[in-house]
């Protein structure tokens, strides 16, 4: 049994909390343009072309041009839409996406100028539950956006999003239960500390695979991007959105992608830990986390370049008939092993 200590063993003044929040938010937000241009360039490479390479050196200023274009567009709202909901929905999406970052540990507690600072927004004692709570609220952003647009395509997209997110959240949550049982804690920093012997993707390999697949569905990425299937329902829930509101949805999608990758790294790939007994100084930790995350982000893009979109009934039967039983079996087997070996 792991003797887990109280979660917060130190006191942080309020101003450190604020500084941490701003720094983490700024860094994650600055990652999004890099991620967007990186995705477009990688997709190009996967298709035998360069991708954007005109604006700035190597096309790195392309997202800036995109933002200027989108931000200077007219704020447009259809007559049939419900005004306040239409404006609120993208805000919900962005807030929940950013909120989930608050609990991701980028490193251990560091001694910075005599003050103990944890390299994470906040270490809640219900880590994964907080993430799933944020994911569940994020779904309102999509649902309200599609519902209030007053367009059939938006509405269909929102309905698909509702069904898809609910179906895959179950499997995603169950896949994490195995890890939580093994580490005997819900705090993400404690989960990372519990992986010092072995990263959890080895004993929980099935759980990792299930979590990976469910994450694609949760973030509406290909091949599970039925929510925004442009061939059938134009753009899904954000069909009627344009300008900065559309940008908000776009950012929310990419931040969500970052969040699931960060969670995967934290829970299955040992967060800031390095293998082979390498123990670098504390300031390296965030870079380790970001490096591991970028590997998963590249994998997300690779999958997007490879797999075609699933049919709707395939999506549902895959989620309920394969992923959910597998996740349940994984949880059961883990429980049995823990009880037997304990």
């Amino acid at each position, binding site marked *: 049994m792991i003797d887990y200590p109280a979660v917060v063993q130190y006191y942080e003044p309020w101003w450190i909390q604020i500084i941490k929040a701003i720094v983490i938010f700024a860094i994650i937000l600055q990652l999004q343009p890099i991620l967007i241009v990186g995705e477009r360039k990688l997709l190009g490479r*996967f298709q*035998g072309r360069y991708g954007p390479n005109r604006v700035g050196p190597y096309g790195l200023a392309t997202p800036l041009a995109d933002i200027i274009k989108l931000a200077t567009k007219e704020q447009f709202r259809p007559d049939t839409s419900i005004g306040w909901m239409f404006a609120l929905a993208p805000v919900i999406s962005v807030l929940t996406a950013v909120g989930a970052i608050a609990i991701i540990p980028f490193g251990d507690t560091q001694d910075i100028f005599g003050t103990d600072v944890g390299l994470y927004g906040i270490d809640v004692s219900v880590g994964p539950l907080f993430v799933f709570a944020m994911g569940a609220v994020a779904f309102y952003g999509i649902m309200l956006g599609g519902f209030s647009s007053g367009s059939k395509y938006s509405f269909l997209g929102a309905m698909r999003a509702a069904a898809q997110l609910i179906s895959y959240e179950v499997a995603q949550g169950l896949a994490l239960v195995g890890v939580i049982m093994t580490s005997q804690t819900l705090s993400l920093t404690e989960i990372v500390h519990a992986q010092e012997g072995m990263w959890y993707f080895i004993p929980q390999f099935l759980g990792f695979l299930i979590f990976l697949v469910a994450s694609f569905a949760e973030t509406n990425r290909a091949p599970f991007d039925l929510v925004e299937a442009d061939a059938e329902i134009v753009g899904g829930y954000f069909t009627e959105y344009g300008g900065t509101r559309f940008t908000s949805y776009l950012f929310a999608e990419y931040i969500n992608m970052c969040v699931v990758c960060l969670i995967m790294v934290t829970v299955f790939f040992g967060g800031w830990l390095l293998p082979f007994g390498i123990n670098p100084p504390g300031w390296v930790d965030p870079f380790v986390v970001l490096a591991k995350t970028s590997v998963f982000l590249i994998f997300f893009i690779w999958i997007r370049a490879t*797999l075609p979109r699933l049919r709707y009934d395939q999506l549902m039967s895959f989620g309920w008939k394969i992923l959910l039983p597998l996740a349940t079996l994984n949880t059961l087997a883990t429980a049995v092993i823990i009880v037997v070996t304990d």
Partner: protein
Amino acid sequence: MSWHPGDEHVTVMRPPAPGAAGGTYRVFAETMRGLKTTFSRVVEGVHTLQYPEQKTAVYPRFRGRHRLHKFEDTGLEKCVGCSLCAAACPADCIRVVAAENTPDTRVSAGERYAAVYEINLSRCIFCGYCEVACPFDAITMGNDYEMSDYQRSDLIFTKEMLLAEPVERTPLRADGE
């Protein structure tokens, strides 16, 4: 009384129902194969030309923008203003107004010359019939394919523009390339 199919019936062969464990395994293997395919594209490198910097070399018989020619030794225009090209043109984009050569002003080698020779490139379909129709090889199809402009009136090429050398040479493919 319901219809009875009789003793003879046809057996239909169907693939295994989707969603079974075997199907999942097959999907997994196919996914891996797909990932390999896309990754080998990355290894292979890019196949695109960066257009404004790198231009596609055209074949010698490529039909680009027209050119009018002069005799190299005398400097006289080859065009005698016969309007055969205008008659052959299916898009009706060539306008020729002929004038007589006088002993003082001698423009072409023949009896007459083209006082006005205009090609409306926004109508031209680059069929090359004008080149075929010309009895003196005065008009030929060049290799220039960059002809976009901001105004339609700028696409009406006059005789001076057609006689002049192109500003930028279009790359030409060597024989056998």
